Structure formats: structure tokens, C-alpha cells
């Protein structure tokens, strides 16, 4: 008899009897394997070769996927909050019966996870905008997402929370920061390094801290709310255009680079502490503006020894309008490539120089290569993160395509949302372990 996922079956193999529910195959499983959830909760894989399988009950468990949803929760507080989910670890849950990863969340589930919402919100909207891994987001999605956020800002909500996968959070944060101008409220992007179905998830604290931002933050900026320490001691509120994921897995992977985080929320007292007074105050609602076109004709190129300069020509010939380089040190590429970059400038392609050291500022005046690059038309991106420079150029080329190259160049060098920090004090560079 044929069996399918969700059926309860009995398998007899090598004189051993197994009973359990057939689970859907994972992409890692071998062809001949039937995956069973036994009554003791364990999953085992059995080869169906020389095994007898008998279906005991059909469709004991259903594996249907829920449709993306919009749900609401009305609480006893006075905050109107919109929670927009794009997917990612923070909203993914493993279903213990099916083993499937469910990348969705409802308002009820969110309140169950963070009971603080109950007393704080008057209305909580939970909308699943996307169900995507963050590496699958595109500039097109930044446009749609910023549109959804702007709609809610205009409707007068007290805060917008965006659940986002952590891998490309910096890109989305920067995209929102550039496109949502004169924000009357903070926009908080929140993620998790440990999924929210784990008892040790960092999502809860990151979300709790976000609520504090809506009630206490004096700034109207796009920020990222993530753990500041491996301990559950405090959450940092980073400026979206200055934050970067600096570790592949730690809770405190997100750190402000070349800047100080805007604030921290201390646990368990939940005290909100402003730690950077260089911020953009909340604007008036009527000044809020959405400028959200992004060009997909911008490339981010990391320079390396032996880099073939023809690659630059290839991109220009393919129609790219902007090239952001991650150069070495103060912002260099090999001398041989300077001519190719000069050609790009002649053809009206914008070229930007950032540094792969991440920390510190680009300076093209110190060495002759740098001076030649300036001559070839390269824009030094100051202390901007390469990803932020990339998004900024994409936004300028998308939203201001009626402007001349020189005007866009001028805009690029303007500090729009504190993506540039002109003063680096000694303490903003981290300390590493050096023995003892």
C-alpha cells in the first residue's frame, strides 16, 4: 500500500516493528528513505528496501502551508504599532509535529512571545509582507517595503517594526533610511540570531527593546535593535546606516562601525539610555516624504591582488551606471585599473571608493594611486560602509535619474542621514583579545 506524508504507518524491517507518522522528505535525505516520527517523539530514517510498510491511518497530520496573513491584536495600552514581517530567523518556527520550518507569525503568536505588547499597544497589526530569506531580497523589494512602511507612517502609527533576516539587514536598513525622509517616528528593524522557537532565542529581548524605542527615543531614524552582548544584558539600538553584521552567528554580531550606537536598552530594568547625541530628531508628520526608487544598475566590487581590470569594462559595457569599490587600506586599487576607471567616468558611470578595512576613513590624498583615482573621477565615500555606499548610490541613481552626474556626485558626498561620521574618537574602535 502506498503511503504519503501525514499517514500513520507500521514498518516491519529486520524483525523490528516501527510505528509512526510519515514525514515529508528533506532535501538531504537519500532516495530510499522513509522518515518516521515515532511515538516517543524521535525521528528515524528507514530504508524501504526489504521493509514492509502498512498504512494504519491516513492523513493523521496535515502539512499544508498557511497563506501569508494580516492579523490584529487589541491590547490595553495606547501605542499603535505595525509589525511587518519579511521572513528570517526571527519569525521562523519549527513545527514539532511535522518538522517543517514555518516562517510566519500572527499577532497572537507575537503577543504570546512578548507579553509586553499586551499592556503597551492599543492596536498591533502583524502583516506578513514577504516570506523570504534575507539573501533573497532585492532593490525592488526595498521599494515595496518602504512603500508599506510609508503608508503606516502617514496613517500616524507610533512605531513600525520590521522583522528581517540578519544577513542583509544593513542593506535594507540603509535603503529605508534613505527613502523615508523626515521621519516622525523611529522605524525599528529587528532580527534574531537564534530562532524564536528556541528557549534561548534572542528575539524576545530584541523585540522588548524595540517597544522602548517607540516610547522613549527622541530620534526619528531607521534603527536596528539587536543584542549588544552575548549575555542577555542589553540590546543596542544602532543607526541603520552605520550598523554591520560582524559575526556569522553570535547574538551580538551587530555592531556600529565608525559610530556609537544611538541607544541601549538595559535588561531586566528595561532602562532606555541614549548614548549618542548625534541623532536626527523626530520630524513633523507633515514633513515626512517617501523617495524610494532604487537602481539595479549598481555593482559592489571587492578589489583583490591580481584583480583583472577588464572586469570594470565588462560591467560598464553591460550597462552599469554606478560602481562601488571596496578598495584596500585608504581606498586603493592597482594602478593598472585607474585607466579603466577613468574610462567609466568618461562614459558617465559613477565610481565610488570605500575601504575593505571597514574601520576608518577613505583618503585618496596620501598616496599617488589615490591621487590618480581622484583624477579619474572616483568619489571617496568617507567612512561609509561599503554596503551603505552601494545602497546610497543605487538610491541616488534610481530616485534622481533626472539629475546630472555631477549633481548626483554632490548629493553622494552630502551627509543625508548621518551615514557619514566626520569625527572618529579613539574609543569607537573595538578592542580584541591580546592574551591575558
Amino acid at each position, binding site marked *: 500500500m502506498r503511503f504519503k506524508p501525514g499517514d500513520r504507518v507500521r514498518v516491519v524491517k529486520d524483525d523490528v516493528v516501527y510505528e509512526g507518522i510519515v514525514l515529508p522528505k528533506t532535501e538531504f535525505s*537519500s532516495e530510499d528513505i522513509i522518515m518516521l516520527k515515532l511515538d516517543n517523539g524521535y525521528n528515524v*530514517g528507514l530504508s524501504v528496501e526489504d521493509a514492509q510498510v502498512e498504512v494504519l491511518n491516513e492523513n493523521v497530520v496535515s502539512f499544508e502551508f498557511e497563506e501569508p496573513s494580516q492579523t490584529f491584536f487589541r491590547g490595553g495600552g495606547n501605542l499603535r504599532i505595525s509589525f511587518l514581517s519579511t521572513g528570517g530567523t526571527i519569525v521562523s518556527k519549527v513545527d514539532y509535529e511535522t518538522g517543517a520550518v514555518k516562517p510566519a507569525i500572527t499577532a497572537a503568536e507575537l503577543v504570546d512571545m512578548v507579553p509586553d505588547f499586551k499592556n503597551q499597544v492599543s492596536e498591533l497589526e502583524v502583516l506578513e509582507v514577504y516570506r523570504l530569506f534575507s539573501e533573497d531580497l532585492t532593490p525592488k523589494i526595498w521599494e515595496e517595503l518602504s512603500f508599506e512602511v510609508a503608508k503606516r507612517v502617514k496613517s500616524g502609527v507610533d512605531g513600525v517594526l520590521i522583522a528581517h533576516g540578519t544577513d542583509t539587514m544593513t542593506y535594507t536598513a540603509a535603503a529605508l533610511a534613505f527613502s523615508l525622509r523626515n521621519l516622525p517616528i523611529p522605524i525599528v528593524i529587528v532580527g534574531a540570531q537564534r530562532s524564536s522557537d528556541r528557549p534561548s532565542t534572542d528575539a524576545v529581548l530584541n523585540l522588548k527593546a524595540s517597544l522602548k524605542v517607540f516610547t522613549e527615543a527622541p530620534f526619528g531614524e531607521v534603527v536596528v535593535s539587536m543584542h549588544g552582548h552575548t549575555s542577555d544584558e542589553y540590546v543596542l539600538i544602532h543607526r541603520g546606516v552605520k550598523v554591520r553584521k560582524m559575526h556569522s*552567528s553570535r547574538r551580538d554580531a551587530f555592531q556600529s562601525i565608525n559610530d556609537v550606537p544611538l541607544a541601549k536598552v538595559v535588561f531586566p530594568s528595561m532602562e532606555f539610555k541614549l548614548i549618542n547625541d548625534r541623532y536626527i530628531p523626530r520630524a513633523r508628520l507633515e514633513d515626512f516624504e517617501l523617495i524610494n526608487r532604487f537602481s539595479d544598475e549598481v555593482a559592489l566590487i571587492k578589489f583583490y591582488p591580481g584583480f583583472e581590470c577588464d572586469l570594470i569594462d565588462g560591467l560598464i559595457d553591460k550597462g552599469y551606471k554606478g560602481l562601488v569599490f571596496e578598495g584596500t587600506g585608504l581606498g586603493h586599487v592597482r594602478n593598472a585599473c585607474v585607466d579603466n576607471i577613468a574610462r567609466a567616468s568618461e562614459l558617465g558611470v559613477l565610481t565610488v571608493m570605500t575601504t575593505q578595512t571597514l574601520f576608518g576613513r577613505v583618503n585618496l590624498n596620501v598616496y599617488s594611486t589615490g591621487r590618480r583615482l581622484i583624477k579619474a573621477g572616483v568619489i571617496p565615500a568617507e567612512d561609509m560602509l561599503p554596503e551603505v555606499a552601494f545602497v546610497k548610490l543605487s538610491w541616488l541613481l534610481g530616485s534622481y535619474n533626472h539629475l546630472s552626474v555631477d549633481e548626483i556626485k554632490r548629493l553622494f558626498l552630502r551627509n543625508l542621514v548621518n551615514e557619514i561620521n566626520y569625527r572618529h574618537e579613539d574609543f569607537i574602535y573595538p578592542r580584541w583579545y591580546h592574551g591575558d
Partner: protein
Amino acid sequence: MEINYEELGLKVGLEIHQQLATKGKLFCSCSTSLASESTPKVEVSRYLRVAKSEIGEVDPAALYEMLKGRKIIYEVPRGHACLVELDEEPPHPINMEAVLITLGIVKALNAKPVDEVYVMRKIVIDGSNTSGFQRTAVVGVGGFIEDENGRVGIQTICLEEDAARKVDEGKGYVKYNLDRLGIPLVEISTAPDIKSPEQALRVAFKLGLLLRLTGKVKRGIGTIRQDLNVSIKGGSKIEIKGVSKLELIPKVIEYEVMRQLKLLEIRDELIKRGLSSEELTYVVKDVTQVFVNTKSNLVRNALSKGLKVYALPLKGFNGILKVEVQPGRRFGTELSDYAKAWGGVGGIIHSDELPAYGISAEEKLNVFKVLNLDESRDAYVLTLADDESAERALQAVFERVKNAFVGVPKETRAANPDGTTKYMRPQPGASRMYPETDIPPLRISEELLKEAEKLKPPTPDELLSRLVKEHNLPKPIAEALVRDPLIHTYLNLVESFGRSVAPHVIASTLMIHLKGLKSQGFDVSLITEEVLEKVFEGVGSGLISKDSIPEILKEYLSSKGSKSVEELVKAYAVLRREDLEKIVDEVIERNRESILAKESKAFNIVMGEVMRVVRGKIDGKIVADVVREKLSAYLKKK
């Protein structure tokens, strides 16, 4: 009282957890050795949270603490834990050395390996796992182990990660060291096929020996843990966690059977009294006013801390609470366990045990009066607590009392060091198990199985022939040894001293001398493995003669602790040859006349007298050589 376990329908299942001695941990490359006091460490603090709907098996206390937001502090000893243990990095692929050892055990237990191994997450919220779950996987199912009383089935063989080591606990926090977290554990669960306490010990011993013979398991305190499940007809299947010593197993089972029988008697008595659980009503009354002038320090202390005295009346229960269910544990003690586990209170005081704790007979009576109870028929339970804890504690006590009408409630219990047990938590439904999505399935291929064949531990027969052929033991001793728990001690000692002390010397010490001392009425349990180590160290280094072993051990036991084994070893230190020669010369000189008179008997005369002086201090063969040599020289001279 002789108990017929077969008639009672005793069924016992064993669950054995054994740490593996792999190079790295199950899901990272950290060493599996524990940190020392001086290992530098940092601390990390976390909180856990679980949606209530996701909780399977939990301690009520742990759940309560978690909901209250208990801080969990982790000591991170440098060199013994990395980001994986800290829950800051996904697990690495499963340790194949551990998988192979487990497969070897699967084969040795006649079980069948699954074709694909999936690692699961089992929710644990007491903080002993940084992730909030334990990773565990079924590797084999459906085996058996032979036993004199019939085959005992093996249900599952799992490979899992050990939990962190609890080092401290206090108000609002608990502290663990991360060194133990992630050490591979093999878990063997038998079917409930065991029918007597002795059989349980025997099967546990056999499983323990099998594990040890893989040569790949950790040894020493805390490296092996036994859980039991015990049921009798009419009773319930009770899980008992954490039996630390093998020898305790029969006692734990006997005491559990006794407890179940007593609980059934209590049930019958309650029915005989015409009581029923429906008629029992839950009322909690503040009776603090009875104790305002109390002489009881216990109560006074509590009152001075702002606590109150709360009472739960139990109509018709007079005398029930003092029924002894296990040695030193009354039905009241069972209720107290519930109060502690659910209410976090220090315990309860019940009317059956009063007057006690400085509480007077008059106070006892006054509580009866305040509660409108009849002191000759009824009973009550008191607890010293704040309002909220008292409510939780007495509610739990009340639920437990209602269960007295059913008999034996399903519980998970913890073993005490004396073999009795105490309530730990309710028995879980099926555990909530989530797939560990960070680890791909592992195909158990033919190659892996071939590889595992090499790690399969020898069977008892194979061990026997190894003892005879490689250790040169006489067959009868070897046969006795493979069936005796002392085999562990034997193998340990051979491992440590086998190069300097012949294995047969070790075997006869254990199987002949120790047994001899036992039959003479000595308590040979005082001769620990450490004592034996000291003795064989002496033999191995030539400090003492092997002949002195029985005497040293006997003197050690006779001295009843007044002489240390080190002292004795020193006292029996071997004579130097020059000293022996001097003694022999003296003896010959003293017996000169009889020697010359009876030359044929000369050797016996001298040997006898010398041995009286040097017995145990030097090998008899050496003495004989010296005597022979000296005598012939002496006679030649004459």
C-alpha cells in the same frame, strides 16, 4: 518480610547513560575533559523562555523559576567550551567517533541501526542546556541482552549530548559550568522485562561491563547514570532518576515496591473509612493567630520573616499521614515533597507528627479547633510561607491527597543516596521533540557499519578467553571474574599495574583473598579501589612482596581505620637481601648444633625459623635460595 516479586508482577526497565571518551564533544571540537578549579573562566548570563504550549517534560520548580525570569549564569572555562556550547554558533556535524562507538554498542546488543540518523531537540528549561534543548538521536532499536532469568529487550540506543554541570543556585539565579555540556552520552533503554531487584542489578552490571569493554567510555564518578522505571500490578509505572551507584539499584527497587504497596494500603484504608476524593474540599486557612505566643523556634523564625502559618484541613485522614511508605519516609513526607516542588516552601508540618518542632500539644489542638476539625478523626497540613507560595504548595498537596484514593500517582522521582526516592515532577506526556534543523541526516552506510564492527566490545565469552590466554588467569578464576562486579576493579588495576604486577596476582587478590576475608566476617567494602591501588603500587615497585598482600589487607581491616594503607605498605616493606642474609646467618649460628646433628633436616629448621621472622616481607623463593646458599657454605666450611 520475604517479598515474592513475581506474584506482585514487578516490572523494571533500565535506562543507562554513559559518557563516551571521545576526543572532541558531540557537536564541537572542545575537549571532553572537565575544567579544574584554576581554569580561567568568564561568566555569561541568560534567560530562557518557552511558550507554555511547547513544554513537554518539565520540573514544576524549573517552570516556575523560568516564568519568574530566573537568571541563568554560565561559567565558561577557557579551553573547555566554545561558541557552540555558548549557543552562539550552530552545532558542527556530529562527531563520527561517537557515532561509531554507538554503532558498536548497537551491534553488541543485537540491535538494529536505523538507516538514517536524525538529531532531535528535546526541550529542557532548567538552564542546563544553553540552547534550552538537549540534542539527541536514535541510532539503534530492538536488541536484547541475555540473562539467566530470560532475555531482556533493548528498546532504543540513543546518542545525545550531556548537560552543563550545576555549580550553584540561589534566590533568582542558577549557575552552571559549561565544561560538561556537549560530552557525548550513550543512552540504552531496556524493555520492562526485568522481574526482580537482583536481576536489575545483574542486567545493569552486564550493560555497564559491555560499555566499558568498548574501551571508549569515560570512567569515574558521574560518568555513568542509571534511571529506572518500576511498576507492580495495581500500582503505576514510576520513573526514578539518578541512581548514581550500581549497588543501590536493588534497594531502590525494593523501596519503590514497598512504597507502592503502602500507598495501595492507604487507598484501601481510605475507602474502608468511607471517604472519597469528591467529598474532599480544598480550603486554606490562615492559622497564624494560634502561634502568636509559640515557643517553637521554627515557627517564630518564620513569623519574624513575615511569613504566616497556613493550614489545609484533611477530613477523615487522622493517622494516614504518619504511615511509613519507605524507611524514614511517611505519607506526610510524600506530601511535603509536593509542597517543596510546587510551592518552593521548606516543607510541611502535619497533625500526625505533632507535637513536634517545639509546637505544643495545646497548639496542635487549637489548630484543630480553629479548623472545626475532630482531632480523633481528622488531620491537617501546615506550611510556613507567604500567601502565594502557600497557595501553590497546599494546592499541590491537596491534589496529591486526592490521588491517594487512586493509589499510586504517575510520577518522576529522584533517587536519594540511601535508596529511598522523592517526588521530582509529574510524568510527561510524549516529549516534545523538534528536529535539529542545523544538522543534516546521517546515512548509516555499509562502510560505517564495517568500521563499527571493529569497535564492538567483546562478548563475555570473548572476554573469558582473553583473560585466560592474554592474562594467563586460571580458568576457574577467570570464569568467576567475568560474572563478578569486581571485574571492573580487576580491569582498572590491570590497566594501571598490569606491566609490573602479574594479572593473576591481581585476580587472586580480588577473587581469593578478598572473598576469604569476607568469609572471615570482615567488611571488605572498606577495601576500596584506592586502597588496592596503593597495595599494588607497592608490589609493582618492589617495595613489598606479593605474599604480603593478604596480611596487609587483613591488618588494614582489623585496624578499623587506625592504620592507613600507606603505613602498612611501609611496614611490610621488603627486606633488603643483605638484611635477609644477616638474619639467615644469625639463625644458622643459633641452631648450629641441631644443623650439624641432622644435616638432612637442616634446611627445614633454618627455613622455618627465618620465615617466621620475614614472612610477608620478602618472596619465599628468595628466602629459600639464600638459606640454601648459606647452609651449603656453612656445611662446607665445617
